[in-house]
Every structure is written in C-alpha cells, then in structure tokens.
C-alpha cells in the first residue's frame, strides 16, 4: 500500500496551506515534516530533495514534487477534482488562478511592516469586493448550480472556500453582499472531510501572526 503523502514546509500557512486544504477535502491523510531551523532547510537542499531549492515540497507516489501549482494540479487530477474534460479544466484553472492572485495579496499582509499595512489593506479590500468576489458570485448566479464548474465539487470550490475564510478573518463585512458565495462556503464546509478539517486539532494552520513572522525572520535570517 502506498505511503501517505509527506509535506515539507514551515509550521504555518504560507504556500502549503492550499495543498493541505485540497488533500484534506479529498479525504487524503497526510504527514508533515516541519522546517524549524535553517539546518532543516539546508539538509533538504543538500540531499537534492528540492528541485529549485524551495519549499513547498510534497513526497507523493515516489516523487518529490515542488512548485505549488504543479503539486495542486497533480493532486486534483489524482483525486478527480479537476473536471470531466479539458474545457471544464480550463474554467477550473481560470477560477483557481483568480483565487490564488487574491490569496497571494492576503498572504503577504503579515509580512508588511505595521506602518505599511493599512496602505496595503485598502487596495486588497477594494479588489476583494469589486473584482474577485463579484466574479465568483456571478459564476454561481449564471448557472444556479451548487458548485462552480460542471455541477460537481472541484478544486476550484475548495480553493475559493479557503479564500473566503481568509477574507472573513480580514473583515467579515467583506462577504456581506455575496449570498451565493456564503451559501457555497456553508455547503463546502459541511462536507464531512472539510468539516473535520475545520475542527480544532486538524492539520489546518492558524493565521500567521507577527510573533511567528519574527521567529521565522530570526531563524531564517530574512
């Protein structure tokens, strides 16, 4: 029997969290090896485990995969969360990339010096309510189905719902005018595997706070 996938990353959300969500939603158990000191990262680099000297890295099916998108694409294909044909896949990719763009902006916020944070927040809020959330709300409205693509759960729904949790953490009022997105969030959250992942004690990581960033800065010298 194949071993569980092993995730190599820091003990925090960063670029690995969307992979954790996708595996969890697919009902796939996984192990994690946390990089806690520079020596841990050096060891991975020195034994040739990191193709481009970067994490995330996921050991799965005899491979050591890097590049977040490549990893997500592989997992989505393997667990049938990538649509039924090329055209559905294209829509799923388009939606997932939009989620990733907003997600990236929100991910970088904790790294801002406090003085700059407010300045960064304004365009993020604006893009959330004027560009990204309306786009997804309109997709759901246009077909009236329960999921974004092909009337079936796909990675696009999982990535979007993960993002909606982050938007809510930022400011719950941002979701106010998007009833279909709220319904999607509730629907996906109640799927057994997702519900389990949302409970305390799961492998889901908490928001990245300033204390954690400081620790990481000291340990990894950036």
């Amino acid at each position, binding site marked *: 029997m194949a071993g569980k996938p092993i995730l190599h990353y820091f003990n925090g959300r960063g670029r690995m969290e969307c992979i954790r969500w996708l595996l969890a939603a697919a009902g796939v158990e996984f192990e994690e090896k946390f990089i806690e000191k520079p020596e841990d990262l050096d060891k991975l680099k020195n034994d040739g485990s990191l193709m481009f000297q970067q994490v995330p890295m996921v050991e799965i099916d005899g491979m050591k995969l890097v590049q977040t998108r490549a990893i997500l694409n592989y997992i989505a294909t393997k667990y049938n969360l990538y649509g039924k044909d090329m055209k559905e896949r294209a*829509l799923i*990719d388009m939606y997932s990339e*939009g989620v990733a763009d907003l997600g990236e902006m929100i991910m970088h916020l904790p790294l801002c010096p406090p003085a700059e944070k407010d300045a960064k927040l304004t365009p993020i809020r604006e893009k959330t309510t004027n560009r990204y959330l309306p786009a997804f709300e309109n997709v759901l409205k246009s077909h009236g189905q329960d999921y974004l693509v092909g009337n079936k759960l796909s990675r696009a729904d999982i990535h979007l719902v993960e993002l909606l949790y982050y938007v809510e953490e930022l400011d719950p009022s941002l979701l106010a005018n998007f009833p279909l997105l709220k319904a999607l969030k509730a629907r996906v959250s109640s799927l057994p595997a997702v519900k389990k992942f949302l409970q305390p004690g799961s492998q889901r990581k908490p928001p990245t706070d300033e204390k954690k960033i400081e620790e990481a800065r000291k340990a990894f010298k950036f």
Partner: protein
Amino acid sequence: MAAKPKLWYFHGRGRMESIRWLLAAAGVEFEEEFLETREQYEKLQKDGRLLFGQVPLVEIDGMELTQTRAILSYLAAKYNLHGKDPKETVRIDMYADGTLDLMLMVALAAFKPPEEKEESLALVVKKAKTRYFPVFEKILKDHGEDFLVGNKFSWADIQLLEAILMVEELDGSVLCDFPLLKEFKTRISNIPTIKKFLQPGSQRKPPPDSHYVEAVRNVLQL
C-alpha cells in the same frame, strides 16, 4: 472549420508572450487584437469578457479564457504538449512553472524605476545561472534524451527555450557553463515551427522598451 484563436493584449511580450510561443510551436495560426487605448480596455471589461478585469484574454473553442496559466495549460493539453500521463504532466508543470516565474520577473522589471530595474534584471540572470539552468542541464545529462520529459517535445521544452533566449538578451554569456543547454537551444530552435517563429516578421514580440511601458500604463491607468 474552427476559427483561429484570438489574443487580446498589449503590443508587446508581457504575460502573453509564452502563449504566443506555445501556439507558434504547435503550428497553430492565431490572430491578435492589440490594446492601444483605454476605451478598448474599458469596452472589454464592460462587455464582461474579462473575468477578473484583466488581460491576457484568449478567445478559443467558444471560450473567453483569462489567467495566463489556465490558458497555457489548456493549449498544452489541446496540442498534446502536456505529457502522456499524470507523472509526466507534473514534471512538465514543475519545469514550466519555474521558467515562467523567471520570465515574469523580466516582464515586471520593465515597470520599475531604473535602479530597481537593473537590480531585478541582475537577479534574474543570477537565478538563471544558479537556480534554474543547472537543474535543466542536469535533467538533460541524467537521461541523455533530446527533450526534457518523456523523450518527446513538450511545453516544458518550449518554455525553457523562451527563457534561455530571454536571459541571453540580458547576458549573452549565460549559457557558457551549460553545454547541454547550448545544444538544446540549437536543437529546439531548429524545429520548423519554432524556426519560423524566430524569424523576423513573425508574431514574436521584442523586449519591452519605454514606449511599451508607457502604452501599458496608459491603457491600465497605472
């Protein structure tokens, strides 16, 4: 008979260039509409053709696709350039994602103030020489085959050639320590569809200059 794909973008490389390369390499004729005025851009947005209000936009097979990677993935699959199974596909994705990251750094550098631009471009050359090119040199050395994945021409080969040429424009000596990449460059450049694309008069675009930057700033009101 299917209509030709139609590309909507500025009259320059930016995020569309990898898409042009892929279509050209696949021997697919395509049309281009160039965004030269704010009005054109606003019309595209108002007509609801830009899911997230952004270009690149590619009209293909009855779809209006945005998000560079979604478009590239669709085209790679459509033209059989994405591997024969998920394990080949994931390797192609890993390689393509790495090279795309590198090329986007070059595209974005054009919009920075002169000093930062110099720094960014120097960093691109450094990353190419120390992080990316050694990996690809080793891949070619380890399997001794003509192409990066599965002994067959794929999207990964097209992206790598595009990246090599782009970095060479910044530093002509960048391949001096990579003999297999030099051979690879020659070999892939001689593929008839690519050879044609590399000739003057093709739809390949020149490196970004101040005129291009100004045109983009004008249309996007940056």
